[in-house]
């Protein structure tokens, strides 16, 4: 994957966590994710369309997500509540929206977020797109940002 699509996510997650949660993020060594199994039990998912297509996932353990949501909302929320999912969705929305704003000369739209909660869930990304997993550490625990995006095939877009 072109590094020009990775750097924006590193900048955006750092900015979102610093601005909205007043929390620093340590970015660890990225790797290619080869399994569809979710890294942790809570996944916030956003789709991208337009000049760049694919998906972005923020994955947390339930414990880490609960602590982050508490910092974000200023109150503790039950992990099975709609408000908890809403907060996780808004975090991935801000990280993805902020990142795509840094793509150079690309017109990209993002979907409304989806949130999946539960052990052992799977997230299947496009088979033609590698998924880059970036582990992050915070004072609330670890999370990953998983980016499976690529430039849209303009010839197929025109044909469609």
């Amino acid at each position: 994957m072109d590094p020009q699509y990775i750097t924006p996510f590193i900048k955006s997650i750092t900015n979102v966590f610093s601005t909205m949660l007043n929390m620093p993020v340590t970015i660890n060594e990225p790797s290619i994710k080869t399994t569809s199994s979710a890294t942790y039990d809570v996944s916030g998912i956003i789709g991208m369309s337009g000049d760049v297509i694919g998906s972005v996932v923020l994955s947390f353990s339930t414990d880490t997500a609960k602590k982050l949501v508490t910092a974000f909302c200023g109150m503790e929320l039950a992990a099975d509540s709609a408000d908890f999912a809403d907060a996780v969705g808004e975090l991935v929305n801000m990280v993805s929206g902020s990142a795509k704003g840094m793509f150079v000369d690309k017109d990209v739209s993002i979907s409304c977020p989806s949130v999946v909660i539960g052990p052992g869930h799977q997230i299947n990304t496009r088979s033609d797109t590698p998924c880059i997993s970036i582990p992050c550490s915070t004072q609330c625990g670890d999370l990953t940002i998983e980016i499976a995006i690529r430039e849209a095939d303009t010839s197929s877009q025109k044909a469609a």
Partner: protein
Amino acid sequence: MKILLVDDSKTMRSIQKSVLSQLGFTQIEEACDGQDAMSKVGAFQPDLMLVDWNMPIMDGITFVRNVRQNDKTTPIIMVTTESEKSRVIEAIKAGVNNYVVKPFTPDSLSQRITETLTKKAA
């Protein structure tokens, strides 16, 4: 001062509501998408609207265009993750008065609200 908050995220509405409360605004109506906001704007008659862009059912830019067909003056602030210059221009052409990019600090949102209302009053 009546304020209409339009955002599909309850979390973001709560955060913005908290900022508005700190500024002394208490008459706040909430809507979860553009269509919900269209159904409330007539009866509520807001003095200011804070509108998200990406929402299901009816997005924020469509809501702004609909509102501006009949109401050219009520200030609207777009509060969104959409930070591209082209999007900001599109929003201004649609009739948005000010623009706040998420993530934002309470101070930056307060500042935009205050400057928008000051400009309206001038």
